[in-house]
């Protein structure tokens, strides 16, 4: 340690850095950085755990003599009680409900985003955006209640109770669409707002109407962000559990008919694991195989959306 006087007037030493400038070993600093790194690295560990846990149990499942890899991925009956494990029975319901959800959320979400970013006055936006945020903040189990006790009766009134049961994929899909709508709207709106004003001005200075400017110039320029929003929305739909668990029925069935009841991958996991399930049974392990498929699909979708954003990011220069 240098004393007060020394540090005020450092003695120049020849061929060496003056003492007061020499790199100090700051143990505390190094330790803190190390801790922070470990903490940051923990997130990688979470992902690894997910892969290991799901993979490990799924492997137990596939190693069981009762099931085959091919049977799992290629057949369409899921009845664990008689040893049938064809995941397509569950995938079909996931696809159907997600497709309906996208059919609802895509046009509504995009339109909302365009309205908010291209038409709404700042005041209107300050009222309308929070409404979407409220919609986004409602827990999905509440949407489940809404699906079962409002949308389903409504749809049954419209379509006829003989055509539509109490549990059906249509109602679950529609409500899931309403749930995803704010997500798609807000991500798309971000993308649209990121389009520089100079492009808007260019379009208007050419005599474009607001509609021509937004649809033919602004939306194409924001397409990568909008694409990412759509894919993230889809991934959310695929992974959504509570709405389908409540409203789309508890029987696994290979069908793409939205009027029927069928169980999605997520709803099946929730129902089976919610009951009294003993560990290390084939039923138990099968849930991890389903969860693994779910994880891989949603991961692929998320990576895809990130890739779209980085690959097609507009430079606007």
């Amino acid at each position: 340690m240098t004393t007060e006087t020394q540090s005020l007037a450092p003695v120049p030493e020849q061929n060496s850095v003056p003492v007061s400038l020499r790199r100090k070993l700051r143990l505390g600093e190094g330790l803190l950085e190390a801790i922070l790194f470990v903490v940051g690295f923990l997130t990688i560990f979470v992902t690894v755990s997910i892969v290991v846990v799901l993979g490990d149990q799924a492997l137990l499942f596939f190693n069981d003599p009762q099931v085959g890899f091919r049977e799992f991925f290629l057949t369409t009956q899921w009845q664990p009680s008689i040893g049938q494990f064809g995941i397509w029975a569950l995938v079909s319901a996931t696809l159907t409900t997600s497709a309906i959800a996208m059919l609802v959320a895509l046009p509504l979400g995009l339109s909302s985003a365009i309205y908010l970013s291209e038409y709404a006055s700042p005041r209107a936006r300050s009222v309308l955006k929070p409404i979407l945020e409220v919609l986004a903040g409602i827990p999905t189990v509440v949407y489940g209640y809404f699906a079962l006790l409002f949308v389903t009766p409504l749809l049954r009134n419209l379509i006829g109770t003989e055509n539509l049961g109490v549990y059906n994929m249509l109602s679950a899909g529609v409500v899931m669409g309403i749930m995803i709508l704010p997500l798609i709207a807000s991500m798309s709106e971000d993308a649209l707002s990121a389009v520089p004003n100079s492009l808007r001005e260019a379009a208007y200075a050419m005599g474009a109407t607001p509609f021509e400017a937004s649809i033919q110039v602004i939306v194409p320029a924001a397409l990568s962000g909008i694409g990412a929003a759509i894919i993230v929305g889809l991934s959310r739909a695929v992974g959504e559990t509570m709405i389908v668990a409540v409203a789309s029925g508890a029987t696994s069935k290979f069908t793409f008919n939205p009027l029927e009841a069928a169980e999605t991958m997520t709803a099946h996991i929730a129902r089976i694991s919610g009951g009294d399930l003993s560990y290390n049974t084939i039923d138990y392990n099968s849930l991890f195989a389903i969860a693994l498929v779910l994880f891989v699909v949603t991961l692929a979708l998320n990576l895809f959306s990130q890739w779209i954003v980085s690959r097609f990011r507009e430079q606007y220069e």
Partner: protein
Amino acid sequence: MQTETPQYAIETRNLSIFYGPFEAVKDVDLKIEKGKITAIIGPSGCGKSTLLRAFNRMNDFVPTSHVNGEILMHGINLYSKEIDPVEVRRRIGMVFQKPNPFPKSIYENIAWGARINGFKGNMDELVEQSLRGAALWDEVKDKLKESAYALSGGQQQRLCIARTIAIQPEIILMDEPASALDPISTLRIEELMQELKQNYTIIIVTHNMQQAARVSDFTAMMMLFGETRSGTVIEYDKTDIIFTRPGDKRTEDYVTGRFG
């Protein structure tokens, strides 16, 4: 309705432009001559852009802005109720300070404006004519399908001019069109303006005194004044008069670089 005043492309009467309560431009009376180049000069923040953007109602997009007084084209007030701003912008094109081509191909950049405005002729011909008009044809004729962003800044700016002349406006507004460009590109734009003047009236805002002196026939000098710090036109005359024997001391100081 006013009677037609054929030698003027555009006329302002008692024009004031507000952003909210702030009067950015106050009491401007200008008569812009047809087929000539008029330069607007003045210190930063004196309302040049504001005035220019008022001519083709681009200020409509600033929700707080509003206009008092009149801007007349063919004797018609562009701000009267029944006037369609979209059509105004078609008749009065604009080139911006920073080149802002659409993120589309070179060809589409020109074709788009023509298409939305109901162009019925041969599109290929129009694209070629416009690019030739903007002195860009030879440089891009082999890459019309490529993105406009692949062009240099100067080329992009000429593309923006090309797409403006493609919709055949009567007046072209230019807000510091060369300020983001190098001297050679600037020169080309200036030459281009001289050619365009045969067919169009041009109003240009510029900070470059030499440029104003070189290209323009008339010059309007703007300046902030008064308590409210509003901008107004303090002198408007033939360019050579403004630059050689201006009537206003402030103009003289400004154009000779002795200003504040």
